[in-house]
């Protein structure tokens, strides 16, 4: 009885600590809506075709005179002929509608087809409409947000995602379990990425829906549907998500539920487990669950915590869990990011744009929000781990940890050269972790 009481007291403490951590995180700008409708619609952010130009292909038997007559009649001007394809590039008179000319040419019985001179873009720059605000993935020094006064970051203070994606965009065989408040199962940027509706250990059912927002944001950062002309890009384009709800609507969960969730995720196909949660107090239950998953070959990333103090648990379980600190859009350590020798590396965790549950989003906003905290830094690391695992399925979690550590950029080398307690080995770098190193003479 005495032991039971002590256990309950311990669980209570853990619950309080987790609650405190998440409350601290929520006090930061998590859930702040800054993107009023209308947001750039698909295709509107950048032009879809070359202004004033159309491409026309005539039927093969059409004579040169007939072709020339068509150009003259419509006052178009020949720019060049793609000789091998027998296609003409024409300019239309200034101010005229491209669509109108396409239609007129299309009605000509001698014309096989006519179309605008569409613009194509390198596939490694995703066409997600909000990608331009994701400085963490590609920082050009752009303004981070749509409202006046939004900050600008320092160019290249990012995780080199676009370069990393040239090597791999991940594998659908890799599953990232997000053990959190659940995931918005019908979110347009998340629903196609779900392995299953997951497991809800709070309500004890098989639908890990999100009634808080934190889990959806974390999931989206790691692996939102990418290159779908909508929303944001995830770090791991092709990885799948497994929602596991172990925190309730206020963002709090007891150790037993979290531990159970870790074991369940490890037993249900997770290759990566994201733990954007923590407590100041160690829990043997969670430590054992982490070891169980690690021994099954699962890479676990956990948030260092946001109080500015010591690294929280489970991130502090050094052998089995990868502890993630946060940096900002200038590659500086976020002042809230916890410190300690357990910190392995850092990732952007300030002003991070992520999907937000539709049910919790006011009608005038898109279901996305800016947030901050080591939770979101952790999601970037989980995404990178998923990319590595997809590329090299045979690697162990320990090897993946080393790859992420050794390839990080020591962005605070000017103050603290080498590994330090603030950002560990440094801010993660997808390019160095994924793209082949060039062996020179």
């Amino acid at each position, binding site marked *: 009885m005495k032991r039971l009481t002590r256990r309950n007291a311990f669980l209570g403490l853990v619950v309080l600590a987790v609650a405190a951590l998440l409350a601290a995180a929520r006090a930061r700008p998590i859930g702040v809506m800054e993107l009023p409708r209308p947001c750039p619609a698909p295709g509107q952010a950048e032009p879809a075709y070359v202004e004033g130009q159309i491409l026309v292909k005539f039927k093969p038997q059409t004579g040169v005179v007939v072709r020339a007559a068509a150009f003259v009649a419509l006052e178009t001007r020949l720019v060049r002929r793609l000789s091998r394809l027998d296609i003409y590039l024409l300019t239309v008179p200034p101010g005229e509608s491209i669509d109108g000319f396409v239609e007129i040419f299309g009605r000509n019985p001698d014309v096989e087809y006519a179309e605008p001179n569409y613009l194509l873009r390198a596939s490694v720059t995703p066409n997600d409409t909000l990608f331009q605000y994701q400085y963490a993935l590609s920082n050009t020094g752009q303004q981070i947000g749509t409202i006046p006064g939004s900050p600008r970051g320092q160019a290249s203070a990012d995780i080199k995602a676009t370069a990393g994606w040239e090597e791999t965009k991940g594998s659908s065989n890799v599953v990232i379990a997000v053990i959190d408040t659940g995931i918005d199962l019908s979110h347009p940027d998340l629903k196609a990425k779900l392995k299953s509706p997951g497991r809800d250990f709070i309500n004890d059912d098989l639908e890990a829906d999100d009634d808080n927002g934190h889990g959806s944001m974390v999931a989206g950062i790691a692996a939102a549907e990418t290159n779908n002309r909508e929303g944001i890009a995830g770090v791991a384009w092709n990885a799948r998500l497994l929602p596991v709800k172990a925190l309730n609507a206020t963002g709090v969960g007891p150790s037993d539920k979290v531990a159970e969730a870790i074991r369940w995720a490890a037993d249900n196909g997770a290759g990566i487990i994201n733990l954007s949660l923590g407590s100041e107090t160690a829990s043997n239950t969670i430590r054992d669950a982490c070891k169980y998953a690690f021994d099954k070959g699962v890479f676990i990333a956990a948030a260092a915590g946001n109080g500015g103090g010591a690294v929280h648990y489970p991130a502090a379980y050094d052998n089995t869990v990868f502890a993630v600190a946060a940096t900002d859009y200038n590659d500086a350590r976020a002042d809230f990011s916890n410190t300690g020798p357990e910190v392995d590396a850092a990732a952007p965790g300030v002003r991070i744009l992520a999907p937000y549950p539709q049910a919790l989003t006011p009608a005038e906003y898109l279901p996305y929000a800016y947030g901050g905290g080591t939770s979101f830094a952790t999601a970037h690391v989980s995404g990178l781990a998923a990319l590595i695992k997809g590329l090299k399925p045979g690697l162990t979690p320990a090897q993946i940890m080393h*790859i992420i550590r050794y*390839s990080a950029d020591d962005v605070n080398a000017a103050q603290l050269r080498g590994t330090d307690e603030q950002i560990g*080995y440094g801010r993660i770098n997808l390019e160095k972790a*994924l793209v*082949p190193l060039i*062996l020179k003479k």
Partner: protein
Amino acid sequence: MAFPAHRCAAAALASALAVIAAANPASAQETASRPRLEPLLDLDYSARAIAWDEKERFSTLAKALLSAGVRIEWLKGWRISALVGLNMSDWSGLIFRSLPFSVEDQAGSRAGLSAGAGLENFIARLGSWDFKVEGRFMVSLGFKKTLPLSGLNEAGEVDMQGSWMHLRAGPVVTYRGFEGFSPFLGASFDRIWGSVTMDESVGDLQGSEKKPVSGRGWAALSGGILWEPGSAFGLGWEVSVYPYPKKGGSPGFDFGMSLKAFFPF
């Protein structure tokens, strides 16, 4: 089921030898009254398209060999040769993606030892035309080379070692109607294959990857000139074209060149 390259090569060599054996040695007009010994010097260069990673990826193996050896006229119409030498092999373009940190080899040429043997059989002379079949097999064992990996937070290095084998066999026709020099043409079954092993060590990370490679082509067309100003010295110059199918089916061509000096006595 894929038929292993070395078995294909062995089968082709056996076929070539069968053709040689079927030829009537009695028809040979050049016979050896006594065994002739010819020291040889051979300088050979070629750049060959190779495939790796389940033949999904491609690069080029450039190799230069300097070999010395002897050629012996052994039986009537038969000549056998043995060569040893040094070579430089450049595997640039190979990418090792199974290592913890993927590595692309752009480190240039690496030295190695090479050895090989050749076999020739004179078949017939028709007018000024000589017909023979010849085969040659060379092996190269590269020296291990260690290079540092830079740009990471922990010191790292890789050890690389490559080896290749080259088999060539086919008929050659030589025109003997000119004084002092003889142009020749040949068509051969030609196969190159091998492997490169890379061992990586970065901090606490270790990994090793052995990458089998094989040439993209199976044939060679060659032509050249033999210049024999006297009975004590000869020089041969040969250019080879190695056709291979590119991805998508269009033809690609590799080239090679060799210079050979021989000193019969």
